[in-house]
């Protein structure tokens, strides 16, 4: 989103970003202020006082009923929220979002609204502005809505409330962005009449998040493997990865004193930093595993610079690409894949010279991959490293987003031409 806004500003647009207040973001999983430092100063940011009630951790804000049965209360909250818009946790933001875009448009008429998801409730705001003021809009759908990218199946049928919302909003959108081919195929098949408006805008990576140069691997002081990203995988998935790590460490001399550093957000609300995954990681300290919590965006490059190999733990399959895979590639370090074989990240990594290949999520196969990555970390040549980084060049976020924004602006021009 930051890059999208910056690209519009760079192309001479007057940009206003509507978001929620910092303390509301903090409820989710925490706030990284270093991220906003690189927002183009010409971009205006409007922060709405919306918060996710289900994630509230201040017990003084709880009713007695909620305090007595917190889980039951949240379930009934979600039911109530979906009466306004069919999305749990966010459905009741609909009115506030709609009011905000109408007010902003009144103050400073907009030529284009770009709604990004999640939450999908943002679509209601785009639709409202279209209905009331005929402001053209595009949808940055990322992982889509009617496709369940984790399980690779239809998330809801067309004849459902969500289905009707999606169909209604997309029918008038001038452009629809998704992150990979399988999701694009899904939308082109579901809405054939919109096929030419579906565009793939990959996640890409920020150049300032990549290490400046490769640190020579030092097996004497211990190789360092790293994972950086949200810890959104299951406990079982993580346990399997850790079992693979332990097995590799016990049989491979290069890994005997190796460390595995895990960084990133885990859990949200009351469980922020304290979910079962965090406990599993902290329990694995004797195996050289550490969990250090989130990393500020500004520090990402220096973290990568300390590592010798990356561990790419991903959920889902062919519909998921993730943003991590691009950033990991750009480090130029060996990559161990801990995800399904038939995963879109495998397509992106194909041809990467320091990738240990897709082997699925199984302890033994992962152990083999850790061993191979250890050897790659120590034995790979500068040439291989350079080639690995070059493999990622095509995916810098700046290049991707600048092309996407340019293309969207062109489409908007054509649309205007058609209507004038």
């Amino acid at each position: 989103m930051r890059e999208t806004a910056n690209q519009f500003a760079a192309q001479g647009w007057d940009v206003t970003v509507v978001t929620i207040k910092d303390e509301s973001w903090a409820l989710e999983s925490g706030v990284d202020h270093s991220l906003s430092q690189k927002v183009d100063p010409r971009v205006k940011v409007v922060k709405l006082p919306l918060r996710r009630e289900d994630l509230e951790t201040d017990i003084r804000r709880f009713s007695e009923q909620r305090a007595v049965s917190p889980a039951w209360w949240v379930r009934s909250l979600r039911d109530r929220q979906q009466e306004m818009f069919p999305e749990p946790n966010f459905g009741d933001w609909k009115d506030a979002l709609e009011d905000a875009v109408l007010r902003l448009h009144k103050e400073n008429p907009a030529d284009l609204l770009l709604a990004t998801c999640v939450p999908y409730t943002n679509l209601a705001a785009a639709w409202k502005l279209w209905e009331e003021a005929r402001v053209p809009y595009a949808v940055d759908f990322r992982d889509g809505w009617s496709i369940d990218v984790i399980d690779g199946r239809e998330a809801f049928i067309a004849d459902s409330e969500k289905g009707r919302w999606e169909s209604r909003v997309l029918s008038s959108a001038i452009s629809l962005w998704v992150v990979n081919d399988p999701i694009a195929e899904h939308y082109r098949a579901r809405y054939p009449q919109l096929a030419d408006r579906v565009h793939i805008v990959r996640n890409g990576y920020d150049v300032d998040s990549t290490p400046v140069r490769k640190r020579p691997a030092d097996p004497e002081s211990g190789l360092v493997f790293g994972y950086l990203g949200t810890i959104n995988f299951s406990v079982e998935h993580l346990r399997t990865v850790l079992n693979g790590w332990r097995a590799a460490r016990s049989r491979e001399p290069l890994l005997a004193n190796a460390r595995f550093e895990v960084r990133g957000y885990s859990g949200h609300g009351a469980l922020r930093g304290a979910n079962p995954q965090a406990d599993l990681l902290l329990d694995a300290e004797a195996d050289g595993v550490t969990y250090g919590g989130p990393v500020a965006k500004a520090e990402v490059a220096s973290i990568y610079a300390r590592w010798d190999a990356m561990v790419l733990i991903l959920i889902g399959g062919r519909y998921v690409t993730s943003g991590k895979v691009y950033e990991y590639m750009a480090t130029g370090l060996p990559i161990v894949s801990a995800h399904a074989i038939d995963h879109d990240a495998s397509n992106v990594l194909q041809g990467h010279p320091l990738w240990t290949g897709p082997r699925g999520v199984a302890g033994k196969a992962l152990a083999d991959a850790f061993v191979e990555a250890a050897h790659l970390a120590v034995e790979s040549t500068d040439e291989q490293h350079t080639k690995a980084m070059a493999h990622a060049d095509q995916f810098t976020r700046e290049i991707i987003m600048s092309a996407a924004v340019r293309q969207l602006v062109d489409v908007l021009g054509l649309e205007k031409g058609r209507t004038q």
Partner: protein
Amino acid sequence: MINVLFISAKTRPVSVLAGSVRKLVAEGARVSYGGSVPESWMAKKLTGIDFVETHPLRRSNLRRAVDLPFGERVWLRIHSDSWLRARAREAHVLVALDDGAVYTVWQLAQRNRTAKAVNGFAPALDAVRELAREGEAAALRAFRPPVSLVVREFARRVRGLPGSLERTVTARPIMRSSIGARLWRVPLRAPAVPDKLRIAMGRRVAEAMNWAGKYGGGSYALALTASKISDPAIKAELYDKAVSQEIDRGTGPKHLDQAIQSLLAHADDLQAAGEYKDAVKNLSRALALGFHRGVHIDQLASPLAADPEAFVGRFHRSRAMQTVMTPRGRVRPAAPPPTGRPLRLLVTTNANDNFLHHILDRYRNRHDVEVRYLDMATRPSLKRLTWADRKVMAERMGGDDEHAALVEDLMRPYLDWADTVFLDWCLGHAAMLTTIDPGDTRIIVRLHSYEAFTRWPHLVDFSRVDDLIFVGSHLLDLTTTLVPQLRGPQAPRTHVLHNAVELSAFTREKTSDARFNLGLVGVGQVVKDPLWAVEVLRLLREEDERYRLVMVGADMDPKFSRATKKYRKKMEAKLAPLVEAGAVLRLGPTKDVAGKLTDIGFILSSSVRESAHLGLMEGAASGAVPVVRDWPFFAGKTHSARTVYPNGWVVDTPAAAAQRILEVNATEENWLESAELASKHALSTWDWAFVRADFDQMFLGERR
């Protein structure tokens, strides 16, 4: 200094707890912890964490609170704790560590109105940082609730007065006396009492009995009431509650038959009325009670093993169950293995991969097999479906198409890829997979042992399974008796294949004193019945005090079930003096079983039930002389321990076991000779070097 008070209603992950306290202390906080948790957990796990104080809070409920939401129960049982009140009064941050503690923190925050009150570790840290930034923590004020809360609680108590009066006449001292308890049963038995009154009375008497610690009496009151009630729904519910509470207490349920019958009868009626959801609920409860692990798995005897036909007969007579068990077959038969390319083999399980390592290794390294491995537990969406018995049943009754669609979406890509699926453990994931037609993919399922005592084989559609593998003929016999589909025209082929175990690494030289050491490898479940081995030891030590028992493996976890807890308690009492005297060595869990076996001269199988007993096989391979109890669950049947092992290894009683050991050990030469024979037999029968040929045959057929 900022005072932080942690409160929890259950145990918390220790590593996260320790990390959080470390961070809070670094920010200048003093952290105290009150937990409504086991004192032993506090004493053992919290040492080394930098708490100013820890304090165990009451864990038992007040009688009037038994049916309240958990959070309220917790508050009612701890609200008068003087330590809690004192710490809450001086706290600057009150922290709930779990949902059960949120209401307590909410109530305390009404009394200490300046403290921050938060839910979770990270919010606690944020609160402390905020207070530190602000400079000075708020001064302490009076510790009392606002008037509005006092008024609300008073009104609530007035509303609860009738219940309070009833509770007074069924007070704990009255119900504890056998006369009082018996007196209360009279009106439950009396004829012509209106159902409504009888039910209310039955529930109250059961509550009172339980409260007085007479749980058997509580169950009896519920069952007695159920027997006099005509409403099938309430009858089923009361029997269900009576039996559940007996199982929860770890006692053999006395009214299991009636509970199953009434739940099944009600399920049948509901199905006939087209009320599928409720029919499934009752059928599921009948199966859950009938096949409860507390009845069959964590016990030394099982009504299912004693008379399998009679036990499952009542289920099979249920129309609802018949619907669920109706085979649906497949449109196409499984295709023969491909000829122009490698066989695509999907190996799948749900978390337990203990018996898959050698199989995966072998076929991953063959050029003519392409292997994929799916652990369903690592895919949350699949994992959820693998235990969804109600959805399986509802789908088969015609009440939940969405479930089949979901399974179709999640599993079809795997089925499309695979020529053969090898699914290990015949449990919920097998039931889930057979919800859909596998197309022309060959489906092989392996059943080890305990699955036969669960409801799952009754929920698998075996007409969609091509081959069912057992690890012993005795389990094949039992399961075939239990599951009608395995005897029908669409039954899968059945096979007996030994587990894949590498035994050659176990043949090592024995230590000099091994000859007098009996070994028991694997003691983590009640069915292993280590006390049988202790009895063997006792008899041997009467003859020769050099005999010792070496126990290898993790102890049984009392948290598994109340029945496990009971057994463990009894076992600990028996073992304590023997350990003290050096007659029993408890080595605990180890990765080096082969190393431990060098000290063991006789390997025992004391179990009441086994599939093959891996520990015994490893012991035999190591050159320890095997002594096998004729596993009582199968003793006397066509196949039993006597057909799994050479007959000479198997004994009926501890006395016979002791006699065999003394005879073999009469001379060192005799012991050595017996050990060598046992080792040879083990290596030539069960070692992977031989067994793998059977798997080749299974997966690759004539291409071998």
